[in-house]
């Protein structure tokens, strides 16, 4: 430690700050700006090609078993906007790689579609069905995407959808601003 400089004597200041000329005068990110960037959902990529063979899901074909093994597009107006509104898309999924959102109708999705069909068939009956399922599996095996496919089916078939997007938010106070 050296003594403080005497009054009137200039000392070498190696600190870089906002006040010093030539220092770091860059603009700091505003409040919430970095979080917004981190949580941003990008659903299209202009550099990806348009896939001409891509069919859209619609009300008639969403529960059909003929879709098995096909990649199907999500219709823009109703479904994508609604899915975005209920936070069904997550930031680290690969939506930003492709021109527009599309999903693979894998066999688990067809299984889910069959359950939807079962519930709809029971709506005329006296005893309406409530089917309950837990999606489980390994890491990155597509559980959240399968949930999104379930939400898509519900939106297309005009169900009423209540989605709790993250269990974390339900039980902690610091994740939600």
């Amino acid at each position, binding site marked *: 430690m050296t003594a403080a400089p005497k009054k009137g004597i200039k000392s070498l200041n190696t600190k870089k700050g906002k006040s010093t000329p030539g220092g770091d005068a860059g603009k700091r990110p505003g409040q919430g700006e970095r979080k917004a960037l981190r949580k941003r959902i990008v659903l299209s990529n202009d550099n990806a090609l348009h896939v001409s063979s891509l069919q859209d899901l619609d009300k008639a074909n969403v529960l059909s078993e003929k879709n098995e093994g096909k990649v199907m597009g999500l219709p823009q107006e109703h479904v994508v906007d609604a899915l975005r509104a209920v936070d069904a898309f997550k930031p680290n999924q690969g939506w930003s*790689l492709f021109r527009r959102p599309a999903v693979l109708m894998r066999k688990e999705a067809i299984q889910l579609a069959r359950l939807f069909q079962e519930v709809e068939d029971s709506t005329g009956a006296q005893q309406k069905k*409530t089917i*309950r399922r*837990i999606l489980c599996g390994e890491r*990155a095996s597509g*559980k959240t995407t399968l949930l999104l496919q379930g939400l898509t089916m519900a939106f297309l078939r005009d169900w009423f959808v209540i989605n709790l997007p993250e269990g974390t938010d339900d039980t902690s106070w610091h994740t939600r601003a």
Partner: protein
Amino acid sequence: MQYTQDTYTANLLQQILKSNGAFLQATKMTAKPDLPLPLPPAATLKDLAALGMANPEASWPVFVALWNELSVPGRPPVLLALDGLSHIMRHSEYMSAQVKPIHAHDLTLVRHFVDHLSGQQKLPNGGMVIAATSQSNAPVSPALDFCIQAARARQEAADIPQWNPYKNVDSRVMETLGGLRSESKDFGIIDVGGLSKEEARSIMEYYAESGMLRHKVNQGFVTEKWSLAGMGNIGELEKASVRMRL
């Protein structure tokens, strides 16, 4: 003792309003709920949800009133969905006034979901309850893991596993998920495993058509990526074929 989460419920009402707006707009209220704030005359469900959205202190009664309206016969089936199940199968991060942890099932919204998941309450117009587990941001919940294991064993007609007596049992979770261990068709698991090779080929053709995968998609290539992705784990497949550039 039950706890409401006012801001969270208000936010949920906002999401409901955005995503189901057309139905809410077209549907008139049938009952006169007892709310702390007045509703306009001849109110639609949209007015009701908007009221809860704008006044977080009234959001829980509004949610209950909305749910009662949905339970009227003739209304559409309901889908209740939740991601990250293990977070609600343990103590929440809140503390009570006595500085004791509050179990997640004592939060009204979670209670509502869990009651429908366990089958204690039925959806009056039919519908589905789907909960997805997570493996990347998941607190340990031994009871949930055990119930899923038991359900998997039941599906495969294998021996039901025994509870490890050295683990702490969360009796409320066990009670909720008890249905997974019994023979019930309405409650079960969907085991999301790897893709088959045909499915892998289908999605890789889509990658190639989008121009994100620059390689001829033939059998050898599909098999190579399928194996690298741990027998067709779709996240790893995407990583291996689209994201990773060598």
